[in-house]
């Protein structure tokens, strides 16, 4: 049975939902009804995705579900939807996690006056993102790409009355515009060289194209990917994007949109693989982002900014996976990361509401006792991110790191292992500070800051646990389950995607059985070694963080906390302090305080300021004096005339 038309429902239903909600909000329809409408639209899109995936499975390994929509006047330029291994995998996560986050938002945003507007924009995002991943060529992908940018801009700036939110939205817009220009230029080079922009035309040919063309295309596409996926050095917009509502951070700036760059690289993998500079550049960007993100996360005190840098770091792992040719592993990590990072952000939302909007983790603590539900879900999310077996993150991260070793890049492998240790450290620090120890009220009481404050806090109900509403609980539970069992899903493979067959034919077949056997052998030993190392660094990193920031940590002032922790520790602590903490703190501090705002941020702000300055300059020329206009005209005439007389 052919159900190709189901594809159109995946972007179509959320778009319809967005339009209906926007219209309904105008007509002052019931708020809850509009929210339900938004959730239903995305749920139905998810159902359609599942059906498409089933149909794809029936056609696999070499079939795919295709639906052309229309074509423009230029040959090879058109739009259609394609359901194959990669795109249905992405679409499943986008609509599935998207639906869960819609549900959560229905509770989380309930008090916001612009509640329906929020759902309209969120639905619009799902539409744009599914166009991005389901497009059958670079044209559709660009359309989706631009529209997720718009959705992201709108949602970061959702609370537009906050100047910080407006500034963050603007920054995200400009960085992504830079990336889009790269992508468009890449598409143009492809159109010129391959005469088409459909994946099915371009990617099979890519294996045979001249190297300089491939290099140019790969680097231009990578520029787009880096901007959208917040990778080094265009990551600066992501931490600021946390000014948006927390569900937005979870959906767009953690689970789905920021992985669009990974999608692009995996989708266009024949180009990156055939281009001499392609994969190394991707891997370099990936490992750089892994380490930078992890170090920067160490220096952050805002719960959402820690998670934002963590996202950058984890997307770096995906990029690294793609860069060493472990595409399946990158796709796999995308899915598991979507589960546990969405879980963590939603959990962070619960935490932030609990502390009355406070986002500074140094001022938190003791949540484990009063909120066991939040405690356990967040713990599982954290452990999944750290990569403890048998949770989801273990399998996917391990697959990427093993892939680096198998690709013959031991340096990348070693750095990736270091990154895993850092990950464990910053995540356990976050967890320990928020959930263990004493709650701020108790701490204040113990410090003797007066029972009155504590009483006032208790009175306000801040300390008492309000039960988590079921609408928030269901997504958290589902995501927790997914974070636990996500690792057992089958890894996606690339058979049947455009360009794969030609690539497989090109690759030299294994010479003999022994080579294959040897490969399997090394693979298994590499995997064992990697697993052991990853577990070791994770446990060490996590353990250090727990010891440093865990329940027995001293009161919250930084200096005394540090001294007391050192005093309570064994000689190991001294060692750790001298060898590990100081350089690390210095590095993290440097990365966070110096590089971050001054170098890269400065460059981005510089571009915006340059545009404003130029704009001001050209408008000042428009002075209103007609005689100056005449003078400009005459000057132009003189230049043109002199050119013609002298040069022609």
């Amino acid at each position: 049975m052919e159900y190709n038309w189901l594809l159109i429902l995946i972007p179509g239903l959320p778009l319809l939902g967005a339009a209906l909600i926007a219209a309904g909000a105008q007509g002052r329809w019931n708020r809850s009804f509009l929210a339900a409408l938004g959730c239903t639209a995305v749920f139905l899109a998810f159902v359609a995705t599942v059906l498409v995936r089933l149909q794809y499975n029936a056609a696999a390994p070499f079939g795919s579900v295709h639906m052309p929509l229309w074509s423009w006047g230029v040959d090879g330029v058109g739009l259609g939807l394609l359901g194959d291994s990669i795109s249905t995998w992405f679409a499943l996560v986008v609509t599935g996690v998207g639906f869960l986050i819609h549900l959560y938002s229905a509770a989380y945003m309930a008090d916001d006056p612009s509640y329906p507007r929020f759902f309209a924009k969120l639905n619009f995002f799902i539409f744009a993102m599914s166009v991005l991943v389901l497009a059958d060529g670079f044209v559709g992908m660009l359309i989706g790409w631009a529209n997720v940018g718009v959705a992201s801009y709108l949602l970061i700036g959702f609370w537009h009355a906050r100047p910080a939110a407006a500034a963050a939205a603007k920054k995200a817009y400009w960085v992504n515009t830079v990336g889009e220009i790269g992508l468009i230029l890449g598409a143009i080079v492809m159109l010129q060289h391959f005469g088409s922009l459909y994946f099915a035309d371009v990617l099979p040919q890519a294996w045979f194209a001249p190297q300089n063309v491939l290099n140019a295309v790969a680097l231009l596409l990578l520029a787009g990917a880096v901007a959208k996926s917040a990778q080094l050095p265009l990551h600066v917009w992501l931490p600021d994007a946390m000014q948006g509502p927390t569900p937005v951070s979870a959906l767009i700036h953690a689970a789905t949109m920021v992985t669009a760059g990974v999608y692009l690289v995996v989708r266009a993998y024949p180009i990156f693989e055939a281009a001499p500079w392609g994969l190394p550049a991707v891997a370099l960007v990936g490992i750089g982002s892994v380490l930078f993100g992890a170090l920067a996360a160490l220096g952050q005190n805002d719960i959402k900014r820690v998670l934002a840098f963590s996202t950058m770091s984890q997307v770096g792992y995906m990029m690294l996976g793609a860069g060493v040719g472990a595409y399946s592993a990158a796709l796999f990590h995308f899915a598991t990361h979507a589960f546990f990072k969405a879980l963590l952000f939603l959990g962070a939302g619960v935490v932030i509401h609990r502390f009355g909007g406070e986002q500074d983790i140094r001022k938190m603590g003791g949540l484990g006792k009063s909120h066991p539900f939040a405690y356990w879900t967040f713990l599982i999310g954290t452990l999944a991110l750290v990569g403890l077996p048998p949770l989801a993150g273990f399998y996917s991260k391990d697959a990427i790191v093993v892939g680096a070793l198998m690709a013959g890049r031991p340096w990348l492998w070693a750095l990736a292992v270091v990154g895993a240790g850092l990950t464990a450290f910053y995540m356990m620090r976050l967890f320990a500070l928020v959930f263990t120890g004493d709650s701020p009220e108790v701490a204040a009481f113990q410090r003797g800051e007066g029972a009155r404050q504590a009483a006032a806090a208790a009175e306000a109900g801040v300390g008492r646990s309000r039960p988590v509403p079921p609408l928030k609980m269901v997504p958290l539970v589902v995501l927790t389950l997914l974070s636990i069992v996500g690792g057992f899903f089958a890894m996606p493979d690339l058979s049947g995607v455009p360009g794969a067959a030609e690539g497989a034919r090109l690759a030299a077949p294994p010479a003999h059985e022994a080579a294959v056997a040897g490969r399997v052998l090394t693979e298994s030993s590499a995997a064992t070694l990697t697993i052991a190392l990853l577990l070791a660094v994770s446990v060490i990193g996590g353990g250090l963080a727990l010891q440093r920031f865990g329940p027995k940590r001293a009161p919250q002032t930084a200096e005394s906390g540090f001294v007391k922790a050192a005093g309570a520790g064994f000689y190991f602590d001294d060692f750790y302090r001298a060898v590990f903490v100081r350089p690390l703190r210095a590095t993290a501090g440097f990365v966070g305080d110096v590089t971050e705002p001054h170098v890269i941020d400065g460059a981005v702000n510089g571009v915006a300021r340059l545009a404003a300055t130029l704009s001001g300059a050209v408008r000042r020329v428009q002075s209103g004096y007609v005689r100056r206009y005449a003078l400009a005209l005459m000057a132009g005439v003189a230049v043109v005339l002199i050119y013609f007389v002298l040069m022609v």
Partner: protein
Amino acid sequence: MPGITDLNIIAPLVALTAGGLVVIVADLVTPRRLARPWTYGVAAAAVLVTAWYVADAWQAVQAGPLTAFAGAVVVDKLSVALAGFLLVAALSVVLMSAADRERDMSGFLSLILLGAAGMTVLGAAGSLMVLFVSLEVFSLGLYALIAFHRERSEAREGAFKYFLLGSVASGFLLYGFALMYGATGTLSLAGLAEYAAAGAISPLYHGGFALAVVGFAFKLALVPFHMWAPDAYQAATPAVTAFMAVGTKGAALAALARFAWAAVPHDPQLAGKYMAPLAVLAVLSMLAGSLSALFQNNLKRLLAYSGITHAGYLLIPIIALQDNGMRLTVFYLFGYMFMTLGAFAVITALQFRGEQGDDLLANEGLWQRRPWMAGLLAFFFLAMAGMPPTAGLTGKLLLIGGGLQAGAGGLIATLIVSTAISAYAYLRVVLAAFRPAGAGRDEATAAAMAPMGGGDGTDAPSPWSSAWIDVGLGVVLVTAVAGTLALGVFPETLLSALEGLLPPR
């Protein structure tokens, strides 16, 4: 001697010109109470009759180009396509102007029709003489149209500035023509083409071409000859501004293409040198236009800068002197017309309902007050930004594809950068309309804006019942939306009709 055949060939022009004259007479001979419906009826009828003749002419030119008056007027696919283009624009402007509060509109309508006739002739000019006269016919009409509401001080100022600079530019154009005449001894474009193909080009001819290019660049508002455009656009009523933006651009581009096709020397190296200044002007226009639009709060000024940017885009196939490239320009011209007419029609409708309409800040909260208007405004501005599936995207893609074929990589790169910059300018307009009122401004401006919003059109006296005016504006808006979408989704239809507008050089 001109005979009946010649008049047959230019029948659309005769109809349009006669319409322009009859409008005035109709106003004189009808009682005051009926004058307004009558004049509007006559104007609309003139456009429709002309459309019938244009359709006829379109059939006739499929076989090949026709010439009239010893080659002075060339009726080919380009000139007929342009005539159709101008008729849509003129009819829309006539419908939009019904919202005008002025009581006596016959002069206005007559100037619109005669202006459209002048523009049509400009696109069909086969001789320098016809080129000059038709250029002046519609320019003089536009000066008067801008100053039509003479009680507004900005209308007087804008018209005066445009007039002064336009006359200077015409002086350069004339002097250029005179030099070219001196070099070649002919005034017909066919004669110039022979001279340009023959080889030996005199320095006099270089200088003449330079000055003539300046004349065209002024009408197209290319940087640095653009200074009049923002002031004149802001000064006029939205209907006139739309006519000026769309009509002038179409006619001047067609004339420039025809002129360049004939007058640029055939030696490829020399041709490249001849086109280089235009390429520089196009690049400057694309960049300066989009940058100037970036923080512009007056929508008419913003659309003026957008027009400057678009003139740069539209020039690309002409600069490349590409065989069959003109169809890309004309295709995007149609798209630009629908988007621009739509945007100005929204502004007109807003002003008719007592809003300020053309001010970005005054449009805040439009989504709450008038959701349909806000939606339409967003549609047209997003289309200009290149949002799919509209003509704004398709047209740009076609230009990019064509430009790459012709090897104009630098121009295409500029187009992309400029599109990215101006997308932000357009997005600002959209976001302002969807922002709750008062979110982005301080108390003082809010107080200043307060009396503007909320009128429903009944407070100001209007010579007509507002229902008729709404129908007219509705027709324009629906046409503009349909056109913008149709060209975006089914570009093939128009594109294949525009095959072979100009013969290969």
